[in-house]
């Protein structure tokens, strides 16, 4: 069944002889075959070296000598050499069993694939995807039409009904405020989650699942590889970044696929700082959509921050620079069943995660309110907020933002509807909220993936940085005299 003949013909005679010698020196038993252990030893696999050094102590020095002697006979590394010889064998095998019957005309998918990769055509395509997929579908339809409908419905029908029920059934003011009134679980927590965040996230997940299923993302990765390299990331990092627009928590987890620790840290930092999540993005799009200039200033500022911080971190952080290698999957029509399942599972996950947290946030705010802590923190934050040229009323939105990014954005949406903020203030609040601390879930994931120290360092950097940026943006807008 397993062919000893196959094994004996993979490598050249010299290597084979060395492998046999090493195999003979391995006296204890391993989970993998002796042959595989010998090959990995020759290739310089550190983990296997450690295991063998521990298990076969007596012979290990001898094995090490054998490896060194063998290496001395070649100019290339043994790792490269063995891989090459194995690849020769693989090529030989595949030539024997595989045939390409005809030269097919490149399909429509391939044409499209090429167009997405060339900067000249790729950038317009990217802009189209952003315009229709994000701006029109998520921003205008999801965050505009759907949210308007649900939100005004909720406020006009459900809130009065809940408050009425509470008034007539619950005599204690404290309990009334927990469930209803201004910051209650049902009137604020559930409303934010269901009427503001859900339609935005829902439309985003639909758009994202479609884009994802076509195989567009890896092409985007190749397209922006050059930009990313200048900030110390390879194009592969596009995927966590793109996922970040869905949910930064999920994206932080996926940053694990990056090759070097350095890249993972840079990606984690940028995700926490400059990538808005879908709900946040949707709300911001909805608020600023009526003023294209405001939207442009916001987007330009965030991109600028992303590039500057990325660039500086890449300069400051020691470590090797990554090389890029990525498999390009075929460009294809999205499979609708895939899109539906993906959207569904993401929504399910999101709701399970988001609802309890929104409720928790309501409870905490309620607790803060009755103990006076909420007012105290608001009072501390107010000078900072005023310093950025914003009115006191924006402070709670920042506090909300700490619980969840989207919660803060939803708070901002509330403010926007009251018409309290002028154009500049809207832009400054939106930008600061985008940069502002990662939400609790994302922070937890940062600790899990990067360790407590790194996570804390990132959060401590972001907190003052966001407010400073808000100040700078306000100052820039004032000094340049842009009328928003």
């Amino acid at each position: 069944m397993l062919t000893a003949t196959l094994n004996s013909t993979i490598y050249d005679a010299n290597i084979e002889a060395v492998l046999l010698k090493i195999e003979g020196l391995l006296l204890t038993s391993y989970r993998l075959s002796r042959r595989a252990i010998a090959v990995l030893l020759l290739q310089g696999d550190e983990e296997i070296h450690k295991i063998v050094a521990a298990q076969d102590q007596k012979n290990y020095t001898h094995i090490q000598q054998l490896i060194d002697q063998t290496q001395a006979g070649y100019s290339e590394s043994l790792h490269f050499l063995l891989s090459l010889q194995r690849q020769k064998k693989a090529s030989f095998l595949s030539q024997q069993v595989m045939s390409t019957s005809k030269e097919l005309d490149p399909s429509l998918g391939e044409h499209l694939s090429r167009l997405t990769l060339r900067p000249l055509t790729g950038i317009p395509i990217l802009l189209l995807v952003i315009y229709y997929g994000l701006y029109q579908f998520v921003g205008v339809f999801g965050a505009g039409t759907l949210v308007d409908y649900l939100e005004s419905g909720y406020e006009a029908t459900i809130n009065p009904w809940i408050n009425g029920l509470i008034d007539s059934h619950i005599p204690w003011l404290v309990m009334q405020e927990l469930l209803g009134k201004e910051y209650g679980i049902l009137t604020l927590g559930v409303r934010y989650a269901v009427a503001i965040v859900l339609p935005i996230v829902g439309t985003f997940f639909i758009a994202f699942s479609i884009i994802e299923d076509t195989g567009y993302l890896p092409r985007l990765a190749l397209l922006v590889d050059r930009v990313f390299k200048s900030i110390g990331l390879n194009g592969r990092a596009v995927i966590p970044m793109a996922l970040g627009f869905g949910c930064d928590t999920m994206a932080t987890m996926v940053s694990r696929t990056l090759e070097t620790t350095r890249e993972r840290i840079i990606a984690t930092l940028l995700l926490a700082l400059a990538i808005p999540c879908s709900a946040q993005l949707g709300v911001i799009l909805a608020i600023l959509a009526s003023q294209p200039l405001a939207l442009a200033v916001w987007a330009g500022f965030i991109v600028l921050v992303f590039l500057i911080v990325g660039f500086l971190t890449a300069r400051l952080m020691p470590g090797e620079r990554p090389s890029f290698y990525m498999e390009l999957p075929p460009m294809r029509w999205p499979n609708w069943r895939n899109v539906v399942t993906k959207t569904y599972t993401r929504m399910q996950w999101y709701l399970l995660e988001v609802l309890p947290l929104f409720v928790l946030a309501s409870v905490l705010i309620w607790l803060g309110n009755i103990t006076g802590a909420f007012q105290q923190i608001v009072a501390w934050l107010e000078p900072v907020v005023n310093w950025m040229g914003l009115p006191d009323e924006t402070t709670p939105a920042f506090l909300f933002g700490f619980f969840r990014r989207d919660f803060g954005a939803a708070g901002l949406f509330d403010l926007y509807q009251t018409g309290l903020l002028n154009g500049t203030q809207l832009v400054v609040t939106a930008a600061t909220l985008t940069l502002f601390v990662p939400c609790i879930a994302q922070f937890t994931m940062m600790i899990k993936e990067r360790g407590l120290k790194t996570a804390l360092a990132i959060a401590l950097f972001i907190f003052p940085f966001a407010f400073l940026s808000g100040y700078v943006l306000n100052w820039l807008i004032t000094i340049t005299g842009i009328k928003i």
Partner: protein
Amino acid sequence: MDCCPPKSKLTFQRLKKALRIQQSNEKIDFHGQNKLILVGTPNVGKSVIFNSLTGAYVTVSNYPGTTVEVSRGKTRLTGETWEVVDTPGMYSLMPITEEERVTRTLLLEEHPEIVLHVIDAKNLERMLNFTLQLIEAGLPIILVINMMDEAERLGIKIDFKMLNTLLGIPVIVTSATRGHGLNLLKNAISEYQQTSSLGRSVNQYANRYA
């Protein structure tokens, strides 16, 4: 720096629960069951095969590197319960990234009855390299040549019977997203199990000859 304090997994577990996947480091009692591990480079369809074997849902996407965690599920084949393990992508037996290390540790520490090496039919030449390493390692391999529909569209034909003879391991051809070949795969798994339980672990076999 990449290691994780176990306390901070709350959100994560909720996510896992939502996806109906059991967390890898939870001790689940799979005692006395057959174990099957899926390995292969990213984006070859491991998760699609995992889903169709177990009926669970793991995120499937058209870009490499979606699976960053080990997922486990159960399936029944010809009256026996199998634990099925989906792994992050892996390019070779010698790991470079964190996820690859996870997969190798899994191969080193668990005792799979079967390892399914899933490869992309369009890139046979490059992917057989890893197959050779797995065979070298003496692991009980079934080779699954997936995405055959896409390869056929490019005019590629593969003589899988011949490959079977040359490699000396079972070779199955599938187009998992369309559900083609999955029954053949299930049969191959049951068959493999029956034959290898006669000669017991292939691992020992390989070691004897090494």
